[in-house]
């Protein structure tokens, strides 16, 4: 079981690094917003795995708050982009 948790956490950490690459080099601002949303989704999964590894069920509350914050941030970014009009970056 420990080996499985370690493998899962390593795969998720690699995923975080790759998503961070897209966040840094994304050609336009909507690409960066997509990368940010994927980052928060990955963090929800990581917190779930850590809840299994440490036997602390209270981490699930953290995942709920994290998912809610990610959704609100995405909606806010999208509103901000729509207000701005066409942009070329």
């Amino acid at each position, binding site marked *: 079981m420990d080996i499985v948790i370690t493998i899962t956490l390593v795969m998720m950490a690699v995923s975080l690094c790759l998503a961070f690459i897209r966040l840094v080099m994304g050609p336009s601002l*909507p690409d960066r917003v997509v990368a940010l949303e994927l980052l928060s989704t990955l963090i929800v999964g990581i917190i779930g795995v850590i809840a299994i590894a440490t036997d602390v069920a209270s981490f699930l509350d953290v995942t709920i708050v994290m998912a809610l914050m990610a959704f609100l941030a995405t909606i806010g970014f999208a509103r901000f982009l729509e207000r701005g009009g066409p942009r070329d970056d």
Partner: protein
Amino acid sequence: MIDVLKSILMLTGASFMLLAVVGLLRLPDLLTRLHATTKAATLGVAMVMVAVALHFAQVAVVARAFGVILFLLMTAPVAAHVIGRAGYFVGSRLWNGTIKDELRPHYDPITHELRSGLEGDELVEGGMVIDPAQTQTTDSSDDEETSSQQSG
């Protein structure tokens, strides 16, 4: 038995998350990247949450885990739709291999209005008499006629 099931669920969930990130890195376009990340990452988190529910096996924890899954399943399509819409408004470039952009002939980038191109045809199909004085707008009637001729 439950340990094996948990391990399988966690490993496949992590694999789906890794696939989502590979799609985010490799795909050429904003919309294709959205297509990759939304579905695969949501499925991965749902599998991990099912593993959490199997691990604790208490009513409160299972309810919260399925609450997370339900919340993700409800919010991920909304967020993807909103980002895709904002990306189209902003004018993010589509992939070179895109063969059809059905929104472009019907979309006005200044006023963000959409026309279906069938505004005149509905009256004809309904068997009603078309009165030119009752057609809605006068300034965009030329565009409507040309687009309906093309689609017809």
